[in-house]
Structure formats: C-alpha cells, structure tokens
C-alpha cells in the first residue's frame, strides 16, 4: 500500500502540493482579514499611524504598516507548504530529494523575509530615503549567493534579429548579479512611488501577482515546469493575504499598508522572476510602474522641484481628486528644461500654465505644472474624479497592460527570441 501511494504521489506531487497550497492560502487570507480587523488600536498606540490627506477628515489617525501582518502570515503559510511539498519525498523514495529546488525555495523565502524585516524597520525608524535604494540590495543577497553557489548561468539571450551581428547569447558575468539586485531595487521602489490613493499599492500588486501566476500556469508543462510550479506556489499565499489586506485598504481605507508592504510585494516579484528565469516577463507586467517611473524622472532626479507629497489634491466641495501642481519660477529653469516643458505640454502630456507676473512669487514669471506622476496625468486627461473611480481606472489600466504583455510575450516574442529565453 505504501509503495503504491508512493508512486501515486510521485506522479501527482505537484497537484497535491498545489491543492494543499490553495487550502493553506485561503486559511492564511482569512487569518489576515481578522488579524487586521483586531489590531488597529495596537498599531495606533505604537505610533504606527498616518493621516489620509485625500479625505475631508484628514486629521483622523489611520493605522499604518499593516503589510507586516500579511507578510508574516505569508511566511507562515510558506513554512507549512515547504513541509508539505518536500515532505512528500519521505513517503516516496523513488526520486532523489530535490536539494536544488528546496535550496532555491529557501533562498527565495530568506530574501523575502529579510526584506519584510528591513521594510518594517524602515517604517518604524523612518530611515532616510537613500536607504530605500540600499535595503533591497541587502535583502537580495541570499538570492545572489544561492545563484553563485549553484553555479547559476550568467548568460542573457540576444533577440533573433541581432543574431547576424552577435553571438546567440552573451555571458555578462558579474554584471548579472548587479542586474539581479537592480531588479529588486526597481520592483520595490516602482511600486512605492506609484502610490498614494486608497488601495492602489495592494491592488496593483494583486493584478501583477495574478498575471505572473497565470503565466506560470501556462508554463508548467515546459521543461522549466518545476520552477514555474514553485513560483505559482509562492504567489498563491501572496495573492490571498494581499486580497485580505485590500478588503481593509480599498476606498475608504481603514488601514494603510506602509512601506513594509510595497517592499514585500516588490521583492516577491523580483524573487520569483529571478529563480524562475523570467525576469524580462515580470518587467513586462510592470509596464504602468515603468511608465510612472519614467514620467517621474525629472522630479525624482531634481531636474524639476520635487515636493514632499505628489498626491492628487482633494477638493472637499466636489468630493473628488484633482491633479496636484507645483509652481516654478521660469528664471530658475534652464532653456532646455523650458523647451522640454513646452513640448510636453503641447503633446498634452503635461499641464503647463504660464503666468507672466505672479504676485505670490515677487511678480516674476512662473509656470505651474502638474506633479509628474501617472495618477496626476490620468486626472489631467480625465478631469476631476472620485478617489475610488480613479483607483479602479488605474487597476483596469494595469489589467490592460497585463493583456498587452501576454500578447507580446506569446506572439511577438516568438519572432524575437528563438525559444523560451533563459532569463
């Protein structure tokens, strides 16, 4: 009987693991929902709270950093899953124990838990912004070390149309490790800056996670199927706990997720992309975040002034959000920047209002532009919107971009890359 059960398990290992992971994830999600409900006062008393600037009542304290709850429950579910998935090998001793797969899972979980720890420390201690670039690099170290020790490949494949000019894939050596940590830094910070309205951070993460999960399901029958299945099992509890968090964070938000959650989400995506060798596909799912980052570059790199908050402006009389603005003296901008502003505003990518003699700025000439975020741009195009309408619109945009990414990946990619790319 044991032998028969053993062979059945070997064939259906993945199914048993997947089904148990679905059950564990649902349990985890329910747990997160109730834990968040009960812990609002604890967080407020500990000083972890913020104010919702987009509401009429912007003095009320809302508990912050609730991402720690969803992150901790995620880790707990993953620990139980590791026992189920790899404990099956005790019963069926046909195949050798998959040390490498288990090692990769451990490295992935280690990176995610380090990021969760560092993210929570950042939320509590309010470290300076330059640490936001350094902390994800530190947290990605376990992945880098695991890759290095397992003699992982540092090759990147070249698109087919460049094949006459170069080799089919180039070995970028140590730069591959730089690429991996930059991926972690980018994913965490891109989600972090594409934020500010209720439910946006969690919502975009859920959409991206579901997209990657669907991609994993499509790729399980291929030769890298084991690792895609592992990535799917990492994303399942992430989706469940994030949905529970979204229930409390969507408009009108009862809790805020904090940097803890955006770090945790970004790192999870970077991690599955790296261990599954599909980081370029993950980047395709990050299209709105990429667009937001590129659009924000002038303000982030101080080519234009960057205020503390670039959130949309709340209008109490219409109960809707309008794009927030920054006023700049034209004298302080060099002519290249002024030209760029003019071009962008004629392309309707920027709202620029010129005032020849502004009384608030010593009667100098000023230009008032919208703060450079995708959220403000959408408000510029669509006019003032209610906060929940805006959030759902942006999430719908995220879904559209996902569809586009799938289209590119599965049709066009076959013309660019010869086979499933190794990265």
């Amino acid at each position, binding site marked *: 009987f044991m032998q028969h059960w053993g062979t059945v398990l070997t064939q259906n290992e993945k199914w048993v693991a997947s089904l148990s992971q679905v059950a564990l994830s649902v349990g985890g999600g329910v747990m997160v929902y109730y834990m968040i409900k009960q812990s609002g006062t604890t967080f407020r008393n500990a000083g972890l709270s913020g104010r919702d600037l987009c509401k009429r009542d912007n003095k009320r304290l809302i508990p912050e950093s609730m991402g720690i709850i969803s992150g901790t429950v995620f880790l707990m579910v993953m620990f139980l899953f590791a026992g189920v998935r790899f404990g099956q090998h005790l019963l069926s001793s046909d195949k050798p*124990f998959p*040390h490498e797969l288990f090692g990769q899972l451990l490295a992935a979980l*280690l990176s995610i838990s380090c990021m969760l720890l560092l993210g929570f*420390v950042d939320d509590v201690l309010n470290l300076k912004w330059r640490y936001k670039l350094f902390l994800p690099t530190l947290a990605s170290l376990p992945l880098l070390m695991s890759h290095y020790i*397992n003699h992982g490949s540092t090759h990147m494949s070249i698109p087919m149309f460049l094949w006459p000019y170069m080799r089919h894939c180039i070995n970028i050596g140590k730069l591959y490790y730089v690429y991996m940590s930059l991926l972690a830094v980018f994913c965490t910070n891109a989600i972090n800056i594409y934020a500010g309205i209720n439910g946006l951070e969690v919502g975009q993460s859920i959409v991206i996670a579901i997209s990657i999960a669907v991609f994993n399901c499509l790729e399980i029958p291929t030769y890298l199927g084991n690792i895609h299945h592992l990535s799917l099992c990492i994303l399942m509890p992430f989706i469940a706990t994030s949905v529970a968090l979204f229930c409390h964070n969507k408009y009108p938000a009862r809790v805020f997720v904090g940097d803890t959650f955006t770090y945790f989400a970004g790192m999870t995506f970077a991690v599955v992309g790296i261990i599954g060798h599909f980081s370029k596909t993950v980047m395709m799912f990050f299209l709105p975040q990429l667009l937001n980052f590129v659009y924000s570059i002038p303000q982030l790199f101080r080519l234009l002034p960057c205020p503390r908050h670039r959130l949309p402006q709340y209008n109490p009389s219409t109960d809707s959000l309008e794009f927030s603005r920054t006023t700049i003296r034209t004298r302080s901008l060099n002519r290249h920047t002024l030209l760029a502003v003019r071009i962008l505003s004629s392309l309707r990518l920027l709202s620029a209002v010129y005032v020849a003699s502004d009384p608030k700025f010593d009667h100098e000439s000023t230009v008032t532009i919208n703060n450079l975020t995708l959220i403000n741009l959408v408000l510029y195009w669509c006019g003032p919107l209610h906060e929940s309408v805006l959030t759902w619109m942006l999430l719908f945009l995220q879904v559209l971009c996902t569809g586009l990414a799938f289209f590119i990946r599965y049709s066009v990619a076959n013309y660019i890359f010869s086979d499933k790319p190794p990265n």
Partner: protein
Amino acid sequence: SSMSSNKLLAVFPLTIPLFLVNHLPHDDDVVSIRSQVIMIIALSTIAYFSTDWLIPKITPFLLRANLFGYDINKKGSKEGEKKIPESLGIVPAFVFIVLIILCQSFFYENNQKLVEYNAGLMSICFIVLLGFVDDVLDLPWRYKVILPLIASFPLLTVYANVQGITWIAIPKPLHWLLHESVNLWVFYYVYMSLLSVFCTNSINIFAGINGLEAGQSFLMAVSVVIHNLLQLCFGPEELRGNHLFSVLLMIPFIATTLALLNHNWYPSRVFVGDTYTMFAGMIFAVVGILGHFSKTLILFFIPQILNFLYSIPQLFSLFGYSCPRHRLPSLNVKTRNLMPTDDLNLVNLFLRVFGPTTERSLCLRLLSFQSICCIGALILRYTLAHVFYDSL
C-alpha cells in the same frame, strides 16, 4: 578602569576556545577545519567592530520612534529619569544575518549542508522579525509561544529530509528497561519545536538586570563553542560536520554579542529588547537541533530551566500569585543596593539568599552562577558520558 576590568572579564572565558582552536585537525580536506575556523574568527572581528559602530548610529532613530524605556532598577535616582533606547538587539541580529549570508559560500561546497545552513538562517530571520514586531507592538504572550513554534518549521523540514534520525540513545543504566535506543517518530519533531519555544522564551524571562540577557547568552555560546571544539579535536570523524556547522554560527554570534555588551553592560546605555533574547534563543535551538547535541545544550540551559520552574506559579497565575508586567527588585536609593521583592525568579532569590547588593555585583553573581553551571555541564557531559553511553 572599570571599563577595562569589564572587558577583561569578557576576554577571560574566550581563552579556552582559542587554546582549543590550535589543536583543531588541519591535515584533511582541501579547506581544513582549522583554517575555516580561523577565517570565521577573522570575519567575526569585522562583525564586532561593525556592530559596535552601528549601535550609537541607530540609537537616535529608536528614540525618535518611541522605542525606549526607563531603567526600573534605578527608579528613584537621577539615572531612572533617563530615556534608554530599547530593542538594540536588532543591530547584532542584522550584522549576524548579513555576515552569515555572505559567508556561506566560503564554507559549503555541497548543497546538502547549504540547505541546512539556509533553513537555520530562515528560522533565525523569522524570529528576529517576530522579536522586533513584539518590541514595537507589544504582542500578547500567546504569540511568543506560537510563533517560535512556526519559526522552527524550516528546521524540521530540513531535518526530516536531510537527516531524518528520530532515534535517541538511551543511557546504559536504563538499557534493561528500554532498549539501546528508542525511536520517537513524530514526537522527536514535537521535541525539536518545543526546544525552540523553550530556548527563546527562557532567556526572555531570565532578564531585567543590566547586562544579564547578553551576558548569559555570551557565556552559553562560549560553552557551546568549547563543546564543539572538543568534539572537533577529539571526537569521532563522522560528527565533525555537525559541530563545524555549530561553530560557524556561534562565533559570529559571540562577536556581535560582545559588541552589544560594550553598550549594554552596567550601567546600560542601551537595552536589548525582546529582539535580542528571541534571536539568541533561536540560534541556540538551531545549532542544537541541526548539530545533534540538543541534550548537551539543555545542560547549558540549567539556570534558565531553574528560573522557569521557579517562576511557574507566577507565569501561570497559580496558587494565588499574580503576574505583574515587571518582576524586578526595587532600589534602595540611600544604600544604592537592590532589595528583593516577592517575585518568584532567580534574580530575587539571589537577593534574598545572598543579601541585597548593587546591580553590577548582582549581575556578576548571576553570571558566575551561569558559568559554574556551564562548566559543571561540560564536566558532567565528558566524565559521565562513558558511564551512560558507549562513545564520547
């Protein structure tokens, strides 16, 4: 001069392991055991200086975030009014984790040991997270019992898949009752997870005096290293991997703890917080479980066990005892001595038995008791071992 005498007290226990390092085997393998140990000592020196440098840098952030406490043992005097930053355990934990992540590549060629190393690190990282969250949010005690249980799961999974031994050796005098060894099946795993819960919480409750938590962990870690080095030098060859694994985790832990003690020893400029006590407890559980010397480890924990047993009536509110938030002695401002209260723990017991004294000498008395117990445990382990068992 009191600083240098404190430092001398810390250096003295380290001489024994250093003497043993000289006798480590150095003729086998490509990277011999002795050179690996010397390498980890060198790297741990960097960890010591990094932790020592980082602690004052983090302190202002902790004070701003309201993570501070008042020194209850100085209540009534001027020092009792000062805000002391709490949860500084995050600094040695952070430096330790970074060091271990970076170093694993130097020490392990094959996947099997690396997987164990990573699983241990995973459990430690989760516990540090839990400890810091507890320091910030003040979690109820049930979390402190359940979460170390869950944190031990990676250890159990790795143990099941890599070694899977659930047999324990029975002492010779009991061979007539049970056999030579008994298979505990699933109860071995229950025992391992209970060990994690016990180690993390027992250090947590044997606390409250400046430098006690870090001091006891330091002494226990040195004892563990001595045991490991003795086994590496004179023990059977097949067990060497386990003890080397333990040494490579304990030495960075000792280095970062020493740096913390620099700031935490009487009079404390910083408090270690639950972050440190849970971090320390988990490291001991990890090396004990994956290094296969959990019974010896328990011997080193005798003071903590005694403290726990003595505290049971208060912890579980039995026999009409209540469990207050702090079970610490009170300060007599005039004589600057600590006076015992009615609380049931070793700290107050020592004050009742040996008389009131200053905080510093009370801590030294308790740490001497810890040292005596650790030395006694080592003697017990090595002399009586062949009375009870066949091998060393």
